[in-house]
């Protein structure tokens, strides 16, 4: 009986998602940004196939080369090709930022769903802890943790995700609290459904838009955080072509060879702005 009743609802849900996607694709800000993000992801995966030079190949004869036909964006202080390093440098942030977002979303959503649905003492306790974590400015906590635990990608992901998860939990919890009052939850309760079923099958699909939008917003902050920490020397280490690291090393040559730091700066800007525009359009479409 429930299966029959549920079937049309599922079809309706798919149609709704399809309609929303079509409406989103009709907006230039969203489409252009999405294409740019996809392009960077493709580059991050496939740059080895078409980079003109090896990103690590040094050339002692040609340091600080100006942009030219041979080197589209010039060469850096070791004579390495700036264009090749620009493409190769996308890999670290394209892997780390989504990893941070996924960890933060999974941990934060589970916490938010559980505390929001069950309430009670667990809710109070977890929310106090969330408040405490939020009072530590992320940068200080990250620097301290990366110093003590050592600089590795895993620590970087866990530290930033650890700072984001409480924020996700708070948003999801608020959304669950609103859903809990709806009729369909009462109906399921009358059918004597159990907690995990209620959370997973009844409530989760309805808070999914919230989680999706929160994920897009967090992804923007994650790119920001990864770029900033690697600029501060707490991310990938030399000779990685990572964008943030390259900018911080290129600063001392800014007077004579500004292209070394301009290329990765513009790349970070393009990625971050695209992610934020996509997140903003998603927020408008789903959380009106």
């Amino acid at each position, binding site marked *: 009986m429930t299966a029959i009743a549920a079937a049309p609802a599922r079809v309706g849900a798919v149609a709704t998602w399809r309609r929303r996607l079509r409406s989103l694709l009709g907006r230039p800000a969203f489409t252009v940004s999405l294409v740019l993000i996809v392009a960077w992801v493709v580059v991050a995966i496939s740059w080895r196939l078409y980079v003109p030079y090896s990103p690590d190949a040094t050339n002692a004869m040609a340091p600080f080369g100006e942009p030219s036909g041979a080197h589209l964006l010039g060469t850096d202080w070791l004579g390495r090709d700036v264009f090749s390093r620009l493409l190769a440098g996308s890999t670290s942030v394209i892997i780390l930022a989504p990893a941070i977002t996924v960890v933060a979303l999974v941990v934060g959503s589970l916490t938010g769903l559980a505390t929001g649905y069950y309430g009670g003492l667990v809710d109070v306790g977890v929310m106090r802890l969330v408040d405490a974590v939020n*009072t530590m400015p992320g*940068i200080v906590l990250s620097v301290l943790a990366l*110093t*003590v635990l050592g600089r590795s990608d895993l620590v970087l992901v866990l530290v930033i995700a650890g700072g984001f998860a409480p924020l996700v939990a708070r948003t999801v919890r608020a959304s669950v609290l609103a859903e809990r009052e709806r009729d369909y939850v009462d109906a399921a309760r009358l059918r004597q459904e159990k907690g995990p079923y209620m959370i997973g099958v009844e409530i989760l699909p309805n808070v999914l838009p919230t989680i999706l939008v929160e994920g897009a917003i967090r992804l923007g902050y994650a790119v920001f955080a990864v770029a*900033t920490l690697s600029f*501060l*020397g707490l991310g990938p280490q030399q000779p990685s072509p990572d964008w943030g690291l390259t*900018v911080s090393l290129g600063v001392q040559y800014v007077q004579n060879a500004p292209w070394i730091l*301009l290329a990765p700066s513009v790349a970070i800007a393009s990625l971050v702005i695209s992610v*934020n525009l996509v997140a903003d359009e998603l927020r408008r479409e789903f959380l009106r």
Partner: protein
Amino acid sequence: MRQYLAQRIALIPVTLFVVSLLTFILAQLVPGDVGRTILGPYATNSQVHALDQRLGYNLPVLQRYWHWATGFVSGNWGVSPVLQVPIRPLVMSRLGNSLLLAATAFVIVVPISVTLGVVAGVREGSRTDRAISLVGLALLGLPEFVGATVLIVVFGVTLAWLPVTAQAPPGSGLLTRLHYLVLPAIPLVFVLFGYISRTARSGTIETSNAQFLRTARLKGIPRRAVLTHHLLPNALLPTVTVIGFQVGYLIAGLTVIEELFNYPGLGQLLISSATDHDLPTLADITMLVAIIFLVANVLADASYALLNPRIRARRAR
């Protein structure tokens, strides 16, 4: 409201206690051998042992925490094992430099972003609004060092209008020092602009739709008076609070800018003590930053209560 504020203030020591535990665990328990972490792999065992003894790291855990926490509260922060100078005067002078930079950024950003935010809000949906909102959104997510490097290349190198270092020559007056701070402050302005103008905009829109504003308009009050006397005092309330909350963000922004411009502020000290494994200094900076952050947030909440005419009226009654 007063009760809420009292509650917030009473929670500060509790939160600080949790933060101090977290800091203590990270800076003193996780590294295992603190002396070895600070001195590095090339120090002899007796050197490590001597440092552990001097810093009290050979005591039992609870005693160590007590030693460190009471020392921090009484202002006795000890001597940095790496820099060999007393930590508190060093941190405080760096904090002063950071505050000067932060103040410069705020003086530039607040008038600009509030004005543009209100303009966008008043003309909601217009082309002006779209442009201001889009610029704000783009700047909001731009890491400070990205904006800063582009600015350095354009204004510092190509046009050579502004000095590219943040530090004025020693002995120069406040005005010269401020001149040197303009370029470093602008990237902070970029990010802050996004948050502040957005809040000013949505506050303006929300207030424009309120009943009392319609009444004011229908009474025939001139447009300008409606704007300055009825709309703005209500519309900008959330903005004041948001400006207060930016202090937390600003700490991260300052760190990046100080590092980039080689400016001797608190953020630069944070990074250099991390690079040098100067854990005692790192722990004290963490605590100080947490205190500043907490106090700023409570002040932001308090300012909302003080400025809100409704809450003020309730108290007068």
